[in-house]
């Protein structure tokens, strides 16, 4: 019978089932330990304090052992700090130890030290007499009660900010019991003082209340808050359990246990029942004074969960929980609920009985509800053997529905598969379906990662098709960070192993892993890992941090990111002396070029030094040339040019050397000319200088310069003709034309006269123009008609076309004439 192990508590049922037979049964006697287990099927920490149990005073430090919920040992260590007052777990499954001086030490479940912080100077000075580790809205909080009866509280161990709660007025001895209540995003403490209760908060406020208890109360010996902080249970010195709301406004019941001693543990089973534990006897009390009694063979420890209570013993790990409503609906004897009918129908169907049909007919209209009930009920079952028939019933019912959304069914199957997997004693996380809903899948995966069960985590992600970035690659990255901590393997092996697993998976940051390796003090491994990092922007800064400047530089260069190269270069420049720095970059052309570029804009002197160092005389010379233009004083200019000249000589650049020499010469000339004629000549080119001299009618000096600098005839002719034209010295122009035969031809003279609008002068030279240039020159002086005639005489069609193209709209007549000429010519 499915209901055989149901224990009625008033109208509802409670069920206790075994989740594990403990792996520690041979070695652990739970009564000899202080026990602390994390909720949501978390690990169990045992603390054995020899000094308390040994008859002879021994000075050995306690031993701490961490087990999985299935009793498999995870880690062990001997305590080496101060005296532990309290041990507990945080919501991220870190093990917290609170010492009597208020110092909190945080370890992970492998007992690797993570961090420490204190609970304030006052707690340190006066010692802690009691401590509560509680779950707050920000995570996990710690409250300590000092010997001065003050309460200090932090709301999150991740961000420990200490707050002092209000003082309880008139408290002269330690409170008989106290608890931390978390409601409305605020943590308050409830302190029992005699028959009164005092609620104190962070704002310095307090509130004294007397709960309504029918029997006489001198003291509340124990109090316990339900998982959701909404209900409160208290045990009075007269053996009465008071159950009510945590704001003390409502009383659900009073139950007289007739026990003079308080229970070892007063807990809640979900939010529905209070459990008291006296030795091997456990009493479950419902809000309506119903009760159940359980007896154990061995001592046990109770762990509250949001939907039940775990009972950890030497041999067994059991779970006590309220039979869920939906399960009750299906399995309760005589139930006529759709789910129950469907379950029956499915059973009959697999038996091959036609009764299946009858059952289905009964619930025909409510089949959808029936399916949902079976799916839900399957979720609440812990034993796969019980999940299966329920799921089978759901699947069977689904067949009769046409448009049933299969998502709920598929999801449940997937969730159960994952749950069954993590519940397996190898992993040992006895999580229920409702707990998983509250915890969420990503956190469950995180918890697997915390246990270093990377393989399972990856498999689950793949099974649930979680995107790689949040799933598999994230886990692999965690795995890699763990891997780099393994000191027994050499760098090469680890680097290779990591790369093999991770490959080029998107979302993996090799630089993060490398950073981890660096923190572990393994720079070589970090370097190797960084080799796999494709993002230079991540790689280079870390390499610099590791003082692998040369690798950083070459990686930066590979990336092509100029800014990154500069980052390394400037760092190098500051950390080395100049000589070393130059040596370091000389073999890296890109870095060298970029540094030069930087110098070009910021530090030209340094650039010259570099060229000098490199025997790059050509570039050094160029620098000097540029410098010469920036100097104001003539002597300095010439000095720079002389230096440049020397450089060019060394660079075997004969041309540049000669040019520089001539420039020096020219500058000296120009300086003298300025002095003599009081006109600006400096900064002009040789050509311009001669031109200016010609304009100024100083033909003698012009001629002298021409000879000195060997100006070619052709250019000199152009220069002189143009200069004379510009200043309108037509006499001199004519004289010039009659001198040596012009290498540019007479047409140049025509051109310059035409350019300056002196057609009369132009005509003088026109007669001397060579025949083939005549037409062009005639056009230039505006004699288009004559030009056309000449072209016609020359029988040159091309020339005719040229004249034609130069005709404007006003030359209509001429255009006609030329057309006529062309026709005439083509006729011949």
């Amino acid at each position, binding site marked *: 019978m499915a209901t055989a192990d149901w224990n009625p508590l008033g109208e509802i049922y409670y069920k206790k089932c075994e989740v594990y037979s403990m792996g520690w049964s041979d070695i652990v006697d739970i009564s000899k330990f202080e026990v602390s287990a994390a909720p949501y099927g978390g690990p169990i920490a045992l603390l054995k304090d020899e000094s308390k149990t040994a008859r002879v005073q021994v000075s050995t430090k306690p031993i701490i052992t961490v087990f999985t919920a299935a009793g498999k040992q995870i880690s062990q260590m001997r305590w080496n700090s101060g005296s532990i007052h309290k041990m507990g777990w945080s919501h991220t499954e870190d093990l917290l130890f609170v010492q009597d001086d208020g110092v909190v030490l945080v370890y992970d479940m492998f007992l690797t030290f993570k961090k420490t912080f204190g609970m304030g100077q006052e707690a340190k000075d006066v010692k802690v007499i009691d401590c509560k580790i509680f779950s707050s809205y920000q995570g996990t909080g710690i409250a300590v009660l000092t010997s001065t009866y003050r309460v200090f509280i932090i709301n999150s161990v991740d961000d420990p900010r200490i707050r002092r709660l209000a003082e309880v007025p008139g408290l002269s001895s330690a409170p008989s019991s106290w608890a931390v209540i978390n409601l409305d995003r605020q943590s308050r403490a409830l302190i029992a003082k005699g028959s009164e209760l005092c609620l104190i908060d962070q704002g310095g406020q307090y509130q004294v209340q007397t709960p309504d208890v029918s029997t006489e109360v001198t003291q509340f010996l124990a109090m316990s808050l339900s998982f959701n902080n909404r209900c409160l249970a208290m045990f009075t010195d007269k053996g009465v359990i008071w159950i009510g709301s945590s704001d003390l406004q409502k009383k659900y019941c009073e139950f007289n246990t007739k026990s003079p001693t308080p229970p070892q543990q007063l807990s809640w089973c979900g939010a529905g029942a209070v459990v008291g534990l006296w030795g091997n006897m456990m009493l479950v009390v419902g809000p309506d004074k119903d009760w159940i009694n359980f007896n154990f063979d061995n001592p046990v420890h109770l762990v509250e969960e949001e939907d039940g209570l775990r009972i950890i013993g030497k041999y067994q790990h059991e779970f006590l929980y309220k039979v869920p409503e939906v399960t009750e609906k299906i399995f309760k004897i005589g139930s006529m609920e759709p789910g129950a009918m469907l379950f029956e129908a499915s059973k009959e169907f697999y038996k091959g009985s036609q009764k299946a049909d009858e059952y289905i007919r009964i619930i025909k209209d409510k089949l959808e509800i029936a399916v949902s009930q079976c799916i839900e009920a399957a979720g609440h079952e812990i034993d796969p053997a019980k999940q299966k028939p329920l799921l089978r019933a759901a699947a069977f019912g689904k067949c009769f529905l046409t448009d049933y959304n299969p998502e709920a069914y598929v999801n449940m199957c997937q969730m159960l598969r994952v749950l069954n997997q993590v519940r397996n004693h190898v992993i040992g996380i006895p999580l229920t379906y409702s707990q998983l809903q509250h915890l969420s899948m990503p956190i469950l995966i995180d918890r697997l990662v915390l246990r270093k069960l990377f393989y399972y985590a990856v498999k689950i992600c793949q099974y649930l098709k979680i995107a790689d970035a949040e799933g598999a690659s994230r886990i692999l990255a965690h795995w890699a960070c763990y891997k780099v901590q393994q000191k027994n393997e050499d760098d090469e092996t680890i680097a290779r192993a990591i790369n093999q697993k991770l490959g*080029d*998976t*998107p*979302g*993996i940051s090799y630089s993060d892993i490398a950073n981890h390796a660096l923190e572990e003090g393994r720079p070589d491994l970090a370097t190797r890992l960084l080799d796999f990092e*494709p*993002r*230079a922007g991540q790689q280079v800064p870390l390499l610099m941090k590791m003082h692998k400047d040369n690798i950083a530089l070459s990686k930066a260069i*590979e*990336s*092509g*990111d*100029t*800014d990154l190269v*500069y*980052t390394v270069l*400037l760092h190098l420049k500051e950390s080395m002396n100049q000589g070393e720095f130059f040596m370091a970059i000389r073999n890296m*052309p*890109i870095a060298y*070029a*970029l540094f*030069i*570029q*930087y110098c*070009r*804009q*910021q530090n030209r002197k340094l650039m010259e030094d570099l060229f000098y160092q490199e025997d790059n005389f*050509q570039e050094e010379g*160029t620098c000097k*040339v*540029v410098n010469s*233009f920036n100097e104001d004083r003539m002597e300095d200019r010439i000095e720079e040019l002389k230096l440049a000249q020397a450089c060019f000589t060394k660079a075997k650049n004969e*041309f*540049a050397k000669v*040019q*520089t020499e001539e*420039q020096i010469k*020219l500058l000296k000339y120009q300086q003298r000319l300025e002095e003599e004629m009081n006109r600006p000549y400096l*900064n*002009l*080119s*040789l*050509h*311009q200088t001669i031109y200016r001299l010609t304009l100024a009618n100083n033909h003698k000096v012009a001629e002298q310069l021409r000879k000195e*600098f060997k*100006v*070619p005839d*052709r*250019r000199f*002719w*152009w*220069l002189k003709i*143009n200069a004379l034209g510009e200043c309108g010295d037509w006499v001199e122009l004519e004289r010039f034309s009659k001198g040596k035969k012009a290498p*540019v031809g007479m047409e140049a003279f025509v051109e310059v006269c035409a350019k300056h609008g002196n057609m009369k002068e132009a005509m003088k030279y026109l007669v001397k123009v060579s025949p083939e240039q005549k037409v062009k020159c005639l056009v230039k002086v505006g004699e288009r008609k004559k030009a056309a005639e000449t072209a016609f005489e020359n029988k040159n069609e091309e020339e005719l076309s040229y004249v034609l*193209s130069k005709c404007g709209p006003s030359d209509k007549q001429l255009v006609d004439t030329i057309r006529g000429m062309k026709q005439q010519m083509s006729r011949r």
Partner: protein
Amino acid sequence: MGSTGHLSNGKLNLNLLRDYYRRELLECLDKCLGSKALVWDDALTGPFGLIAEYSLLKEHEVEKMFPLSDKGLPPSNVQNIIFVTRPKLHLMEQIAQNLLQEEHKGGFRKEYHIIFVPRKSLLCEKKLKESGVYGTLHYIEEFNLSMIPFDSDLMSMEMEGAFKECYLENDYTTMFYVAQSLMTLQFLYGIIPNIQGKGDCAKNVVDMMLRMRRELGGREPQITPQIDNLLILDRNVDLLTPLLSQLTYDGLIDEIFGINNTSVKLPPEKFVSSSQSPEDAPTEKKKIILNSSDELYGELRDKNFNAVGSLVSKKAKTITAEFDERHAAKTVSEMKHFVSKLPHLQQMRQSLSIHTSIAELIKEHTDSEEFLDSLRCQQEFINGLDTDKVNTYVEDCIGKMEPLDKVLRLICIQSYCNNGLKTKVLDYYKREIIQTYGYEHLVTLMNLEKAGLLRQSGQRHYPTIRKSLKLIVDEVNEQNPNDISYVYSGYAPLSIRLAQYHARPGWRSITEVLNLLPGPTIEEIQQIPVALRKRRSSITSSHSSVMDQKVTLVVFLGGVTFAEIAALRFLAQQDDAGAEYVVFATKVITGQSLVNSLTGVHT
């Protein structure tokens, strides 16, 4: 700049890119709460104008705009001052100066921010720190505007220093920006499956791109590739083409007047309407926006200038005819039809008058003796005539002190076509230039030699390249071209020939020529997940040929000329075109701007 429809007319919707930039910009701006004043690095106003109009900025509480200058900021009562600047050290000096002055002034408390375009730079931040103003700055953001969408098939980075930095100074920062930009493009338009390229910088860019993709580690958008091929060409693979005078319409506009961020400023005289008296003629230059949203310009821009005249007059006739339709319109519906066409017609007429004026301006230039003689000289050189001795025309140009850039262009062309010049000839030219234009050009000449534009005689590759790539085409039809050589009236741009062979029959057929050109040839294939591959449409589908035309992104490292772009557009229009082209360049250049970027002492 309201309408941006022209950006989405191409095969690749560049409005997507523009929207992406707008979002990024606004995200930057919205970080600063309250009213803002923007202080502009002058070089950025043009590109920004193409991305975000003032009204948009206004919506995001930009109340004032100032140019960045040494003089400091004018008084204003905005809450935020945002400097929008390129990461250049001399600009940092100005910003620092501005900030120090502001501190001195006191008064209304403001917050100061910097937006770096396209990227933050460590050196700049260091400079700001050294100037002691780094702490004053609140936000230091970067806005990665690197591809300015000029037209539906053209993006430019407008980085004029790219050629010089890469080939002269071995500073490949711009190439890094190019690689990043290509990643942005792949983010918006999908991974480009086929990559080919030629040249050292191309290799550099491809390596960085592949590396960046690895860095992304699979986090890339799942988009079916909209760009099929990526072709990356180094400018130094073809140093000849940009030196020659462009003969297309927009090429000439750029050469003569300079097109900046798709707009050109022209002398106003030609644009005076007949009703205006000459006295009140505007003196300010007339600014005209040139992009394909102007229908007529879209048709004219790629034509050889010799074909522009006839096309313009043909258009004029059509329009007149269409206007005359109103006389023929008898019925109400005919009238209505005419009226509906009216705005378009009026717009066309206006555009026609603008382009007639521009054409006249250009004609003045192209008819000039200087232009024609220079063109003749260029033609001689590229045909390999008398390239081995000192050219008299070049000598005369020097003698007449014509602009240095013109002279240098000619000498560089000669050097290229002669496979370098004999030492005697080269030294003669160099000496002439130094004597005429000044000793400071010793540095210019050294730069040109370093960049490979001027060379001593070397191996004779040019004749082979010219022959095998058919660079010289004698029978050119300028009106109805049948070959890309129309853009230079008889010379087919080497770079575009490479693109042409790339599309069909493929570079394997010209391996030998490729080996003669400098730098490595690159070929990479980027794997695309099967699900994202383009499905081959079945052979039976009738319009498959249109749908299937591949999109090729051509990247010019070190700049591209308008004539080259025209040639690419011409290729895409051919019946047997292998691809539709989208151009992305570090800058739209002319021979003049290329040579000038290497000029002088003032580095």
